[in-house]
């Protein structure tokens, strides 16, 4: 048996392979479920129901998907240029910090102004943080994987410091409740982001924003000179340089764009869902790292990122619905893992073919 690279990829493969991958994942899961004494069909039904079709389930999947769409887009933007920004996690924290600050500072102003300020502040926060590994990479050839990853821990600790170890502006220090457990100040009502209800499907501002960002990224990367240059540099830095492209500038721009998108995710967490700076919640969610998986699954296509985020968000919610006294959380993890593994593993058959020849 030999595995060799396909010179040409027939178009139908890109449809058949993922569909088959998902089918394989479900067959494998069914085996595991049968072995552990759970009815597979009913479990799958509950999974779909909890993720998408149940009453209000899709709205909840959107809630889980929103931060993942942002971090997925952030990763996709940078990875397309072979710039490995692993710092989405920290850039999201930075966006959350800046977004919360803007929301609290502008209390009393009209809502649209506050939203705009929070969005801008979140983007700036993420971009500024991403600028650090970007500058190091562009001017000192430092490996951006290490620097961006390490900054995640730094910002994570800053986040905790702001709420747990200091009496910062963002910490709520008034009242009995705030004394019992340190927490962030709650945003005023005018700073909680609006959402739209379309036939029972609730779309938060953040999710709509993520779709807009996906559109922006698509146009930028497939319809502009900037995008063309990014792809050339991504394929070969030397080729780009020979063609007179300014690689340093591109590194800075792409890295900051990536950081800004992750930062938007942080602002959305504060504005849409948490309404306060929530260090423990943000740190335990791992949005940034999940975003990398999503970008890879979506093969860096911005619209696919949003969809995959929705799928993964749904899968995450479904996990919590499935688990219970008679359904161990570990089994849910096995099913989720199988689905992800098959979806990613199936990629192999798009790019390579297996030959049964000796």
């Amino acid at each position: 048996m030999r595995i060799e690279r396909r010179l040409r990829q027939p178009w139908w493969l890109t449809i058949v392979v993922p569909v088959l991958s998902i089918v394989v994942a479900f067959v494998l899961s069914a085996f595991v479920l049968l072995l552990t004494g759970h009815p597979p069909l009913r479990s799958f039904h509950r999974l779909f129901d909890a993720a998408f079709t149940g009453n209000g389930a899709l709205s909840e999947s959107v809630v889980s998907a929103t931060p993942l769409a942002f971090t997925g887009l952030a990763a996709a933007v940078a990875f397309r240029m072979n710039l490995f920004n692993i710092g989405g996690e920290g850039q999201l924290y930075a966006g959350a910090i800046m977004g919360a600050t803007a929301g609290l500072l502008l209390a009393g102003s009209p809502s649209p102004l506050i939203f705009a300020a929070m969005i801008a502040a979140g983007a700036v926060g993420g971009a500024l943080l991403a600028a650090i590994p970007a500058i190091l990479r562009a001017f000192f050839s430092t490996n951006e994987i290490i620097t961006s990853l390490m900054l995640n821990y730094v910002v994570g600790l800053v986040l905790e410091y702001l709420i747990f170890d200091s009496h910062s502006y963002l910490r709520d220090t008034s009242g009995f409740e705030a004394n019992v457990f340190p927490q962030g100040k709650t945003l005023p009502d005018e700073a909680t982001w609006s959402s739209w209800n379309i036939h029972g499907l609730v779309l938060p501002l953040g999710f709509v924003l993520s779709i807009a960002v996906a559109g922006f990224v698509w146009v930028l990367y497939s319809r502009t000179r900037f995008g063309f240059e990014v792809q050339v540099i991504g394929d070969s830095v030397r080729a780009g340089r020979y063609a007179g492209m300014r690689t340093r500038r591109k590194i800075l721009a792409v890295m900051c764009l990536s950081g800004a998108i992750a930062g938007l995710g942080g602002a959305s967490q504060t504005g849409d869902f948490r309404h306060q700076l929530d260090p423990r919640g943000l740190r335990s969610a791992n949005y940034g790292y999940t975003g990398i998986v999503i970008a890879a699954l979506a093969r860096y296509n911005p619209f696919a990122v949003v969809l995959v985020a929705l799928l993964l968000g749904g899968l995450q919610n479904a996990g919590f619905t499935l688990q219970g006294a008679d359904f161990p959380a570990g089994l849910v993890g096995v099913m989720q893992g199988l689905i992800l593994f098959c979806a990613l593993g199936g990629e192999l058959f798009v790019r390579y073919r297996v030959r049964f020849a000796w």
Partner: protein
Amino acid sequence: MKKRRFALGLPFVLAAALILALGVSNGSARTQKHSAAIKAAWIYVGPHNDGGWSQSHDKGRLYVQSKLGSDVQTTFKENVPEGPQVAQVIEGLIRDGNKIIFATSFGFQGAMVAAAKKHPDVKFEMATGTAQSKNMAEYFGAGEDAIYLSGMAAGAATKKGVIGYVVPFAIPEVIRHANAFALGAQAMHPGVKVRLIWTNSWFSPDKETQAAQSLHTAGSDVLGQNVDSPAAGQYAEKKGIPWVGYDSDARKFAPKQWLTAAIYNWGPYYLRKTKAAMGGTWKTNFYYGNLKDKMVGLAPYGPKVTAKTKKAIATKRAALIKGTFYEFAGPLYDQKGKLRVPKGKRMSVKDLYGMTWLVKGVVGSAKG
């Protein structure tokens, strides 16, 4: 180039559509099952078998299930992260028909308050919290009383007079627990020092092992803890130093070095409130259980606890129950030796919920 990229993203779009389609066809064919049993649910921040806090609650759930049998259908959600996910988990539980929901971590409070407003027909029970409303009750146990007793066991066991105490967050709950532990240890071993290491997490076995190791190398010859996992106990067993657990009876993790632990017994409270929800007599409350009603208690002793220590603990326990003794009665001094509670004064539950200073003899910062 451009075309190919689009084509590569396409399969996922199609796969998504397929999944959605499958789900829809399945969903329309579903039938609702109705049963007479009341549905009750628990939400845990860690695994249900963490050997500590969450497990103590799950024991309570199983108690309810065994007492009420087929009249109740209990379930739980474990490893629920604090944040937007909690609201989703609560909504899901309500959709599944749960009529009473017990949330067992302080970080769930915001979502519980919001859900209580939205669903007036569902009863909400919040452990360790502070927000009470018409359909949301608060409950906790005076863990400090039992922790004081477990501290006595630790104080009697130390030879060097240094005890290590692994603590999660620098919040009043944990500070009062650490204080009670130190006061109990001092009662058996005057002048004993209790060293703190903060992990900034309720449940984090690797951090807890690290903390235990640091405390041991810094000279502690007995370990205690206010965190949820038995990791420090496993370390203690390996190093041959006595260990005081917390939340649950975790003897099996350190059979030789186990001393005892302050444990919570939520079962009777859960049973009472579930029954009340069934019978329509449920009322909100701010319940603070104690040694007397057995919501808090001591786990069985390990082999290292001497008869003399057991007797001393039994005496103190009886006095605590009778009310002739209270560990947070003055005079109490803080770490710098300043008198915080004068003689003849007692701290109220509200004072305890806002305690931000450590008592004399505790080594570590009250700021984490």
